[in-house]
């Protein structure tokens, strides 16, 4: 989510000379390109390309792919695969392309085809290309000159041959004697021996057609000439050395720098801290390298003298950067570009340093301000030595670094131009698929040829991928909106009091359990609200050491809430706490000791063999072991009877005892807000359950990425518990009645928590459920239990290690095992497959199988005021969270090693803040492949139940929403509350959505619809058979 530090404005430091001040600002500007991911223990999703949000999506991914060297879209082959399996439809490719070209679509290209046809053909038929020799071989040794391409239709092929035949017989052969034909026609006829032309069979004519086409295209290619490939821009010195095959200086520098950054940022893995760490990166680096390191790496000869000089002359990091830039010969006008490129050479580490510097509250061992500048200073210092050594040893360059780039640039051979043959081959292929006959090509003038080449080559690979992607999203959008349109006309519910209501987070993983609850208990209702339920707090559990923030990451809590054990059990609690402490100390001693000499020898020789017990148990029987551990833990965990310290009597809130909790007035506001947000102001059931969610998994450095996004990567159970307690408070209810929300006295709220990995439900403060509600509560629990088992079963279909034929109970056990299994790299799929965000009344989506792909936000437009204040505040919170999640998944999927963090298997936790690949690499940001594997990279489709005018007004007031929508980072549709008609946002305006598909398929239950199927599913209506028919 939008967690990038606020745009940093350098305080005008009057002590700095203007030059250095400018340099500082330049650096901070360049730093915006760095990944915004913070320490991995609290994982917050955000748009990977947040630095480019001011551009449109297409411009941004192109710019991003240039800057970071990553893929902007899926590969063309991938999209064609989707085309062949029907996920992209040819007809829709046509629609999308036509719309994209607008007025230019029907222009013809030199009378050959319309532009639309041309581009469509280029999309549908993969065009081959190759170097000169490769082409010669292809033409000489394959069937290319004998038969038409295999993907040319039979009709097309015959037409091409027939027309060529006519052309030859009528025009060429008829006037053969004496007529002046170009040399290539003559040689063609010599090759095919025309005298017996009447006896040529079909195959010979086909070969002739192909050869004639190729010959004409070669002729045309000559007019078009060669084309220079886009020049590669080289910025850093290293790029020039690498281009010449010299030693990669980055390898040398990174080896030293990564190790140093890791020890500088370490939050507690090393037993021994970096000397003088508190004095900053630059200082501690220089001090450390002033010590005798005579045996250090070969290319750092003389480094000690250099850092000694820097320290003696008391140079600051900025001054050192200035020195380095001068030494490297970087001109002032290219400074920013050069510094960006330098920063991005190790962007994971750079980004982490910047983040920790900006948000010292997120780590235990903060680092001083200005560390990023120090980082660049050190990098440039090392680079100067590495570049000199690399240039000297591998390229015999002994001159100044300042002139290195200019000197080497002359040595680099200029890139090979695309030869005319290569270009002709492109047209040769186009001619076949589009049926351009030799006759028609023959009559093109040289200028026509030039523009024809420009036309074909102008529709580049990137453009094709963009159009493919639009069609890919189009299919999904149409399917979604059709499903919603079909539901919009369904009859509304009878206004009966529900048996119970269950409130969940808007998270798309809760879509399925909500559906199952409503299937199990048709009289019940479910509600979706952002999972912190309006309670913004720092929270400390009874067994926790510290407060953790439980709220969206953009908010800083002003309240502290803690959990205490019931006073009657305080003795037991104290005893257990000290037991836990003793066990913890022993474990810590054991782990630390095993890394030391004597204690390590003692421990491994005596207890080492005992390690086989947990080893075998945890690997072979993860679920049983977890249950055993749970049993054991129950003797040392805090006693189960606990209370939240929710109400404060002192006026000031703070982390100290007696300052925990909210004032009654604050509670009333929170309660009112959440009820109004979800539109729950009447028809309260007797029992209302509220569930937060979180996820536990083993061996998963990205565990926190599976927790609740609305709780800032924390577990939302305490928020649910707190809001339930507030809503049960009679004073709150009285005040709410005065404010127009009358909660019946017989309504009881119960908080709980849903573990999305193990599918485990827990309830809180159950002892406070009055006896009058006991039987209803038990019934609701049973229904929830049944729903959760069904939910586990639905999830299981997506894991290929869970057999498709599992029974629901077995699926539940499978999920429990998964979350406890040390060897499981996919404990759950997290947000993978997320694609839609629906902000509407539940009636709009109830009974709709949305395949766990939709964020469902409850919002009742009929209860909103004229200014749409409720919707504005809902969208203000939902937009950044959901689009951040969606875009992070998009990028991590589209180029996993580039934008994401690649495969999880070699990940190695570093400094408790991030992961590296193997023993030493850049910090890997983004999501690992194992989390996104089943994702479909489509931009989030918002469907909001409101009027077009209201939506436009909200966009006008909220610049973030405006930017995201206008720049196409998300898709937007509005569902009219009155008419149920859907309009889709396109290029600044709204257009009505017209349903294309037939009625929605119907299934009797979710299980019937998904059973036996692993892949994504179409949407369907779940309608249980009624008793009458």
């Amino acid at each position, binding site marked *: 989510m939008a967690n990038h530090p606020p745009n940093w404005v350098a305080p005008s430091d009057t002590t700095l000379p203007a030059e250095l001040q400018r340099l500082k600002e330049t650096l901070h500007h360049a730093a915006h390109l760095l990944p915004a991911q913070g320490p991995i223990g609290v994982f917050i999703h955000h748009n990977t390309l947040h630095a480019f949000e001011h551009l449109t999506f297409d411009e941004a991914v192109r710019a991003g792919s240039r800057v970071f060297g990553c893929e902007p879209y899926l590969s063309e082959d991938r999209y064609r695969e989707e085309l062949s399996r029907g996920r992209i439809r040819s007809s829709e490719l046509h629609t999308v392309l036509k719309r994209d070209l607008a007025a230019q679509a029907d222009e013809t290209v030199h009378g050959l085809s319309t532009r639309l046809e041309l581009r469509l053909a280029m999309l549908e038929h993969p065009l081959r290309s190759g170097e000169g020799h490769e082409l010669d071989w292809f033409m000489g040794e394959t069937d290319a000159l004998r038969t038409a391409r295999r993907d040319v239709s039979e009709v097309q092929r015959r037409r091409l041959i027939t027309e060529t035949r006519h052309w030859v017989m009528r025009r060429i052969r008829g006037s053969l004697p004496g007529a002046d034909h170009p040399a290539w026609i003559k040689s063609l006829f010599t090759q095919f021996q025309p005298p017996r032309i009447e006896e040529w069979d079909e195959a010979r004519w086909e070969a002739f057609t192909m050869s004639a086409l190729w010959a004409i295209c070669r002729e045309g290619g000559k007019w078009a000439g060669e084309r220079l490939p886009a020049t590669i821009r080289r910025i850093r010195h290293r790029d020039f050395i690498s281009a010449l095959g010299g030693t990669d200086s980055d390898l040398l520098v990174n080896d030293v720098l990564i190790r140093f950054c*890791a020890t500088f940022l370490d939050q507690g893995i090393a037993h*021994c801290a970096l000397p003088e760490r508190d004095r900053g990166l630059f200082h501690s680096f220089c001090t450390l390298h002033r010590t005798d390191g005579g045996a250090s790496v070969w290319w750092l000869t003389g480094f000690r003298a250099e850092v000694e000089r820097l320290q003696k002359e008391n140079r600051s990091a900025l001054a050192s950067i200035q020195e380095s830039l001068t030494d490297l010969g970087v001109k002032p006008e290219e400074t920013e570009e050069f510094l960006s490129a330098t920063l991005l050479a190790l962007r994971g580490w750079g980004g982490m340093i910047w983040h920790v510097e900006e948000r010292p509250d997120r780590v235990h061992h903060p680092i001083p301000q200005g560390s990023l500048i120090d980082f660049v200073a050190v990098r440039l210092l090392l680079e100067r030595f590495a570049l000199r050594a690399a240039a000297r040893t591998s390229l015999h360059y002994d001159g100044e670094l300042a002139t290195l780039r200019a000197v080497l640039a002359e040595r680099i051979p200029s890139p090979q131009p695309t030869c005319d043959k290569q270009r002709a081959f492109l047209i040769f292929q186009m001619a076949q698929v589009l049926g351009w006959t030799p006759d028609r090509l023959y009559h093109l003038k040289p200028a026509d040829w030039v523009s024809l080449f420009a036309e074909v080559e102008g529709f580049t690979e990137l453009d094709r991928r963009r159009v493919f992607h639009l069609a890919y999203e189009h299919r999904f959008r149409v399917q979604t909106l059709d499903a919603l349109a079909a539901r919009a006309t369904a009859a509304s519910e009878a206004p009966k009091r529900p048996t119970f209501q269950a409130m969940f987070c808007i998270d798309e993983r809760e879509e399925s359990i909500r559906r199952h609850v409503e299937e199990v208990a048709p009289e019940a209702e479910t509600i979706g609200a952002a999972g912190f339920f309006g309670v913004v707090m720092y929270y400390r559990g009874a067994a926790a050491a510290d407060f953790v923030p439980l709220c969206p990451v953009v908010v800083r809590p002003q309240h502290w809430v803690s959990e205490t054990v019931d006073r009657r059990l305080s003795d037991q609690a104290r005893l257990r706490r000290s037991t836990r402490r003793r066990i913890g100390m022993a474990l810590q001693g054991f782990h630390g000791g095993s890394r030391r000499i004597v204690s390590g020898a003692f421990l*491994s020789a005596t207890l080492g063999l005992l390690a086989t017990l947990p*080893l075998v148990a945890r690997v072979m029987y993860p679920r049983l072991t977890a249950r055993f551990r749970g049993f054991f833990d129950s003797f040392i965990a805090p006693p189960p009877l606990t209370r939240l310290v929710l109400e404060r009597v002192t006026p000031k809130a703070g982390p100290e005892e007696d300052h925990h909790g909210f004032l009654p007035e604050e509670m009333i506001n929170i309660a009112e807000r959440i009820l109004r947000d979800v539109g729950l102001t009447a028809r309260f059931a007797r029992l209302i359950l509220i569930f937060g969610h979180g996820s536990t998994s083993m061996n998963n450095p990205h565990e926190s990425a599976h927790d609740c996004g609305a709780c800032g990567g924390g577990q939302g159970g305490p928020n649910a518990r707190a809001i339930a307690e507030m809503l049960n408070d009679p004073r709150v209810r009285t005040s709410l009645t005065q404010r127009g929300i009358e909660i019946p006295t017989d309504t009881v709220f119960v908080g709980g928590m849903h573990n999305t990995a193990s599918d485990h439900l827990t309830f809180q403060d159950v002892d406070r459920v009055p006896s009058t509600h006991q039987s209803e509560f038990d019934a609701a629990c049973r229904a929830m239990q049944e729903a959760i088992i069904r939910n586990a079963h639905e999830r299981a279909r997506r894991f290929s290690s869970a057999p498709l034929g599992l029974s629901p109970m077995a699926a539940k056990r499978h999920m429990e095992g998964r979350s406890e299994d040390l060897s499981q790299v996919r404990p759950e799929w997290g947000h993978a497959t997320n694609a839609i965000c629906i902000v509407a009344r539940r009636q709009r989506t109830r009974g709709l199988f949305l395949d766990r792909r939709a964020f469902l936000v409850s919002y009742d437009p009929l209860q909103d005021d004229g200014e749409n204040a409720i919707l504005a505040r809902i969208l203000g919170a939902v937009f950044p969270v959901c689009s951040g999640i969606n875009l992070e998944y998009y990028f991590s999927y589209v180029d996993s*090693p580039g934008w994401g963090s690649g495969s999880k*298997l070699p*990940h190695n936790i570093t400094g408790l803040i991030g992961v*590296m690949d193997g023993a030493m690499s850049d910090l890997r940001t983004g999501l690992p492949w194992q989390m996104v594997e089943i994702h479909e990279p489509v931009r989030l489709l918002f469907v909001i139940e409101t009027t077009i005018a209201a939506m436009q007004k909200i966009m006008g007031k909220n610049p973030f929403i405006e930017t995201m929508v206008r720049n196409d980072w998300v898709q937007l549709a509005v569902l009219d509350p009155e008419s149920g008609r859907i309009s889709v946002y396109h290029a600044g305006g709204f257009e009505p959505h017209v349903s294309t598909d037939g009625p929605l398929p119907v299934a009797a239950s979710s299980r019937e619809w998904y059973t036996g199927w692993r892949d994504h599913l179409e949407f369907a209506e779940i309608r249980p058979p009624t008793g009458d028919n």
Partner: protein
Amino acid sequence: MPDQDRLLTTLGLLIVAAPFALLAVFFAAFLGQRRMEEQTIGRLIQGAIYVSLVAALGAAAIMLAHHLPHFTIELGDWVIAPNYHLKFQFVLDLLSLSYVTLALGLCAIIAAFSTRYLHREPGYNRFFLLFAVFLMGMVTAALSDTVETLFAGWEMVGLSSVLLIAFFQERPAPPRNGLRVWIVYRVCDAALMLAAILMHEINGEGDFDRLVGEHAWPQHDPLLIGPHFALLGVLFIIAAAGKSALIPFSGWLPRAMEGPTPSSAVFYGALSVHLGVFLLLRISPVLDSAPWLSALVVVLGLTTATFGYLAGRVQTDIKSALAFASLTQVGIIIAEIGFGLRYFALIHMLGHACLRTLQFIRAPSLLHDHHQLENAIGVRPRAEQPQWEQRLPARVQRWLYRFSLERGYLDSLLERFIARPFMILFTRFDCWERRWANLLEGRKAPEVTEIVDEPL
């Protein structure tokens, strides 16, 4: 008791045959271009390991019951020549059976772990193929009774380890680091090869039995005195030092963490790294031939342990920290061998291997565990610098820190004083050869480039 002998022979052969059959199936599938299902591979490999493991335990039980300390299985001769007698021969004794049981036990656990950990990974088949080669090598080396059999196993272990380090071949770093490890392995392989030749020169055959006389390991006749035994000892120590990452070869150990977590765990935490220890245990009679050899082993072990501890303290990523922790203990075990504490070294090695495997496969849970510990203790655990270090002057502390951070400069020393001079020398040879060839052919060729020597 021929029955009992036959049973033991069968069981002993079964230990080796199961991994061999597994490899045969894998290669047959490869040749027949049949792509095996993940599940099939998982079952095959676990089946093979269990068969071996049960056979090993059975053999151990029989030998215990009959108080039989030593049993050899001959598989026949390979080459017979004057002074050279190569044969495949396996031995069952305390050392071989405990090491093979350890190897099989850990491989069984890691195989089960990996079938889930590598699920859906494109290199799944390759991983398990290499795993099977490793297993085969480990079993062969552990049971070998002749130095040539040991060498065969040793090579299989080395090759599969290196290919697993380079498992993620789409990134440049793993193959690069794999190559580094491979070079160190080749150096120690050369030492082992020389040792094997020397053993044949001395005895005419490579049987370890000849070294220990009629006794079962670790007792032996004190007969091995002479300079050639000292040389043999030194060669074995070099071989062991390379394989176990002892000083000065330690630099490769952290580089080996490029592979998937389970392979790092079982190879560098537990088995590969102890293979050098195993070799020294196996040839321990040679070490007793000269007191200075034992002293050398002790010094090597203690230096490595100290180095491993110093470097381990400053490691900031969990896998390197564990790798150096492993190295520390391997150093201690080596020193124990030098002191003549053979039984203790054996127990220490077994315990250490199990403990480290557990720690390695839990490495990705570090954040989770750390958080739990923090909650239990109530404050964030933060290790303190030891007392002795705080008393040192700041300069010395800094020096020590840099020494540890740069891993004792071992890599750069090897690179500066061995690798680069070697490269420069051979590039020169190459230049001269070309010039010479050009001169002979009488044609002018473009000047050949040389690596410029870096002033040291």
